[in-house]
């Protein structure tokens, strides 16, 4: 198994290196947290908010990093695989296609990493308020949590992707889901500044654990670790079960194109 995964990863890295320029632009295209950092640091200076201006700057810089680590696009690939019948060939291989997609994402992450580091360095050079040194413990735990968040997001999107066995545009489901992600994950603002009711509801959904949770840990903003990992894990189990069930049902349904 490890040998197969290693081979897949190497192939995917070679592929990604061909698209260096694109990967760089993708990294650049996620500038939203850096834009919002401007609005929110300014706000925290002028008004009374749950976080200080400096914490806001750190938070959004960490959101940027977490976003770089958790980009997922598997549904668009999978949908095309099913619609065009390419999935038939992938099923002939002695390994679940899940792994190939996962390795592709991992490879992209590895290719993107130097660009992301460069962008962060450049940004803090131009904009000194965002400079800070994270604690070693926070850094390690934060990166671990960011990877867990990536795995959950990947699993969720892969689960929706399996719907392409039944519907033609499964990506539409993901697009709707993405709107919730956009506003509840902490991407637009740390959940600390949300109204109490909205925050309590949001904490039960998987979204805050995809961005807010890892970013807060990285930034050294206190969060409830136990609750966080419990909810994150629970959603992981729910989607894993759902995913395997849909996969088995879907394979029976799938007849390939022209088959």
């Amino acid at each position, binding site marked *: 198994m490890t040998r197969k995964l290693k081979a897949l990863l190497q192939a995917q890295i070679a592929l990604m290196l061909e698209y260096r*320029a694109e990967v760089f632009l993708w990294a650049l295209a996620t500038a939203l947290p850096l834009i919002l950092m401007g609005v929110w640091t300014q706000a925290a200076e002028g008004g009374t*908010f749950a976080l200080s201006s400096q914490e806001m700057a750190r938070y959004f810089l960490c959101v940027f990093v977490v976003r770089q680590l958790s980009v997922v696009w598997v549904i668009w690939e999978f949908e095309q695989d099913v619609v065009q019948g390419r999935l038939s060939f992938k099923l002939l291989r002695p390994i679940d296609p899940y792994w190939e997609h996962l390795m592709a994402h991992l490879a992209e992450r590895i290719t993107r990493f130097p660009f992301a580091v460069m962008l962060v360095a450049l940004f803090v050079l131009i904009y000194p308020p965002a400079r800070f040194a994270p604690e070693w413990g926070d850094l390690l735990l934060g990166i671990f949590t960011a990877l867990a968040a990536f795995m959950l997001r990947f699993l969720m999107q892969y689960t929706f992707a399996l719907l392409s066995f039944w519907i033609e*545009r499964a990506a539409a489901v993901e697009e709707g889901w993405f709107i919730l992600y956009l506003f509840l994950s902490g991407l637009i*603002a740390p959940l600390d500044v949300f109204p109490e009711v909205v925050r309590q509801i949001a904490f039960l959904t998987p979204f805050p654990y995809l961005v807010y949770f890892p970013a807060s840990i990285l930034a050294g903003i206190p969060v409830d670790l136990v609750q966080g990992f419990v909810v994150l894990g629970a959603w992981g189990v729910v989607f894993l079960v759902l995913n395997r069930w849909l996969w088995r049902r879907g394979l029976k349904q799938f007849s390939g194109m022209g088959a």
Partner: protein
Amino acid sequence: MRHLRVLRQFWGSAIAAELEYRGNFFLATLSAIGLLVGSVFSLSLLYQGGYRPGGWRLEEALLVLGAFTALQGLAGTLFQPNLNRIVQQVQQGTLDFVLLKPVDSQFWLSTRMLSPWGLPDLLFGLGVWLYAGFRLGFGPLEHLAGLAFLGVAGFILYALWFILGTTSIWFVKVGNTTEVLRSLLEAGRYPIQAFPALYRLFFSFVVPVAFLTTVPAEAALGRASLNTLLVALGLMLVLFAFSRFFWRLALRSYTSASS
């Protein structure tokens, strides 16, 4: 006059083609509603404890958000589908056929496609604008001033998109560059005064986001100085002229796909 007739043909056929997929329109409307609710929510988060970003009242900031949403809709309806086509035509060499037509090639390439899926955004954006104007007690004169500069903003945005699209003659794959532009334009959700000084400089002079959403709102509120308005008009003319010059320049190095 001739151009108007051509335009009617273009859009008639484009809409007829897109209406084959009516289900998508429903989805587009749903997601536009979701995005709008989320946008208003994230804007309202800034208004805690009496804070006013950049001294803008909520209704005033809603004008900016309305302008942003409407422009996003315009880009989705007109700019994006056409730009995607330029890229496609350069790749496949079908640009030759467009160049042979007895219609100005820039006009053809900028208006050929029309995708109604951006219309919900356009309508909701204008709706938010009108609602905010109503709350602020706008008369016809204020609306006229505001919408006139929203029109100016539309042309500025068009020029930016077309200039980017033109680069596809040299680079072929520019899809990702437009993603970078789109992510920078997100700054237009907030009045420019809500940003720190460094951001204000960047979003006025490097990427002219301030002229897209803040200036139309200021024009309607009667707050914009004559200078600002003149700069906005000048910027439109310069960018528009440059887009034409740049297109001509690019065509000189166009060698078709096969030669």
